């Protein structure tokens, strides 16, 4: 709500107009069924089809992958994805289903993939035809990611994969997985290599996907088991033993710290997709009675709502300032904070919403008296996915302290 009105370059202004024109005719209606809070909890084929249709039409209109080169299915523009994202958000479109593909696999492929692989995989990824998932974490390798044990054994021109990946969002719909594998057991970081591997075409032929249930009651993430899955060496990204460096590209983008802006939409505000932001918090506080008057009039709650608004605006302005080199103290300092702050601010905003709701915060999805359809408790619990996944907040603080402040490494 406090996003500054910011001037565009001529190219951006023209593109923004294109987005607005297209979106005014092509923003899909809300579906008759419930959509989950984000793409990471898609459960049914019906949800998936609706969202895939949306991504495909947005892609064909040039709103997805606009900053990617034309030869890989992109729009060949520069600094326009942010414009498309803003306009899709404004138009309250649904979100993109292929979020792992767009946010992580695509930039990694672009930076490290072989030419043929890029031409083959990127267009289908950007259009949403192929859903992607990410195979990094394992039961024994969470924060200490470089300790992964899933092993690829050389077999002529191919590799045979055995192991166990976990917390794998969207694996149950995925055609492809980006995966961090151990190709050498004698070295920790230097023993890692990075591949893309087929999932849906290999189900029951070396790949098993087993769903996990989240504390919210939703599913969406999985365990993925590999048993003697053969993979061609042509599916490797980067050199043998260079997996950690390639994974760094993925992680930077996953944490909103990469060079490429991830295509994002999802301003659609139906009862079932509720952003934990201050716009929704203030809306709740206006509607809720607190000590006999609207919560928005309570001085203590006003102060805490403003604390959240200031933090949220500060994060938006960080992203803007990151584009002004003269106002930066260190090249990666702001980018490396994005994921940490986005998740923690949302968590605190949702926690505050539960306090504003008071006793009604006890009511969950499906209760007709629940404020906002019970979305706030769901949103609050969901934020823990974000403060834990993609490097916990604790790991993020280690990274910031070590890379930006040059403090001694905590390992």
């Amino acid at each position, binding site marked *: *709500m*406090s996003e*500054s*009105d*910011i*001037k*565009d370059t001529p190219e951006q202004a023209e593109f923004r107009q294109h987005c607005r024109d297209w979106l005014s005719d092509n923003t899909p209606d809300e579906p008759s069924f419930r959509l989950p809070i984000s793409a990471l909890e898609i459960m049914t084929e019906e949800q998936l089809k609706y969202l895939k249709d949306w991504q495909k039409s947005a892609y064909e209109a040039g709103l997805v992958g606009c900053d990617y080169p034309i030869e890989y299915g992109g729009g060949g523009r520069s600094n326009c994805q942010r414009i498309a994202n803003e306009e899709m958000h404004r138009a309250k479109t649904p979100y993109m289903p292929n979020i792992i593909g767009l946010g992580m696999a695509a930039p990694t492929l672009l930076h490290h993939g072989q030419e043929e692989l890029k031409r083959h995989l990127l267009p289908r990824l950007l259009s949403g035809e192929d859903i992607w998932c990410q195979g990094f974490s394992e039961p024994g390798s969470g924060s200490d990611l470089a300790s992964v044990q899933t092993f690829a054994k050389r077999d002529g021109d191919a590799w045979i994969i055995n192991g166990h990946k976990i917390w794998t969002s969207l694996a149950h719909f995925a055609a492809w997985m980006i995966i961090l594998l151990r190709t050498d057991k004698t070295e920790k970081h230097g023993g890692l290599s990075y591949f893309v591997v087929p999932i849906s075409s290999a189900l029951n032929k070396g790949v098993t996907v087993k769903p996990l249930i989240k504390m919210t009651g939703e599913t969406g993430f999985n365990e993925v088991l590999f048993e003697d899955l053969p993979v061609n060496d042509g599916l490797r990204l980067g050199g043998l033993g260079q997996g950690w460096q390639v994974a760094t590209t993925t992680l930077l983008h996953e944490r909103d710290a990469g060079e490429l802006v991830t295509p994002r939409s999802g301003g659609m505000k139906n009862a079932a997709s509720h952003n934990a932001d201050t716009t929704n918090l*203030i809306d709740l*506080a206006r509607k809720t009675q607190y000590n006999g008057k609207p919560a*928005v*009039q309570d*001085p203590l709650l*006003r*102060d805490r*709502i*403003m*604390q959240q*608004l*200031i*933090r949220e*605006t*500060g*994060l938006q*302005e*960080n992203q*803007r*300032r990151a*584009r*002004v080199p*003269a*106002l930066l*103290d260190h090249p990666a*300092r*702001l980018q490396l*904070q994005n994921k*940490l*702050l986005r998740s923690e601010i949302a968590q605190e905003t949702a926690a505050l919403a539960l306090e504003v709701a008071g006793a009604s915060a006890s009511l969950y999805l499906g209760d007709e008296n629940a404020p906002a359809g019970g979305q706030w408790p769901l949103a609050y619990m969901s934020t823990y996915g974000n403060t834990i996944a993609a490097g916990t907040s*604790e790991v993020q*603080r*280690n990274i*910031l*302290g*070590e890379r*930006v*402040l*040059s*403090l*001694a*490494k*905590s390992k």
Partner: protein
Amino acid sequence: MAQPDDYGFSEEAALLKDSARKFFKSNFPTDKLQKMVADNPDSARVQESNWDKALWQQLLELGWTLIAVPESADGLGLPAVAVAGLVEEAGRAAFPCPLMATLNTTYVLAACGESANTALREIADGTTATLALTNRAGSWQPEDTEVSAAEGKLNGTAYFVQDARKVDKFLVCARKGTAHSLYWVATNAPGITVHADAIVDLTRDQAHVDFVNVDAEEVCDDGLKALEQAFPAICTMLAADVIGAAEWQLQTTAEYARTRTQFDRPIGFFQAVKHPLVDVMIKIDEAKSLVYNAACAFDHEPQRAAEYAHMAKASASETASFASSRSVQFHGGIGYTWECFVQLYFKRQKHSQMLWGDAAWHRARLADIVLGEVG
């Protein structure tokens, strides 16, 4: 009006910021500051106002006090983001001088219209000035002033007047009948007595100023309007000073955490030190981003300037407090001594935290704008 994406932070602004940083670094290292202002630890000493007037003279010659003066009054008329860049660097050096006071006065005069042009020209010629409008209770709302004007004479007392002993002129807000006017008067005019306050901060001076039948020139007959228009710039510039000083605190403390060894490791290895230091950095960055947004809004999006300035100063006040607290704590025993430089910034930041409104005060004003006032 729209804000430029890069805040309108031009090459010229970047050059000014960079040269200010180099100027303070080579001419005013922290040991010089310590020697100048912390020579005498006796808290019962006569209040001093020690500052480097020769260096200030150089700063005047560089034209840094007239950057906010409009071109129509012979100033440089630089945008607020460029001014904020300079102030951030002055804050990093904790340089005792009337720069901030003069800039604040400039913004108020510039909001007065034609009638203040002569005063603005004086600033363009090197005159320094400060605002006198706060009451005994420390209200930041100028309608609470305890100075009144009748028949061209000022009477009453202004409190919490910043750098009062370093400046040439006061810009006084005085009640005149049912309205409030602004008056421009020399600090040594007959009937004025400046009483130095005993303050914690060693890098500033502050005073309460008595006015007894003082002849003063009225420069604005709608003082509250001019002050309201200038207030976002005043808060934003103070917030810019805070983030500069906080960055000094962060870098100095990080350096200590890299070199001080305990349990056979540099203390920055320990997450009980590392993570809060990262949180200080995060807090500084939030405040800094909000400062440049607020400064940009002042020129390009005036209808939201107050809202964004409240955000910037609320964030900066918290930054001042948190960075100060961690800088002393993580320096351990030495951080608690008079000889350690962190005490200078600790005290400056605690002063800045409250000056022109603390975090809760600014959030309350922000809430009135965003949520509507409570009836």
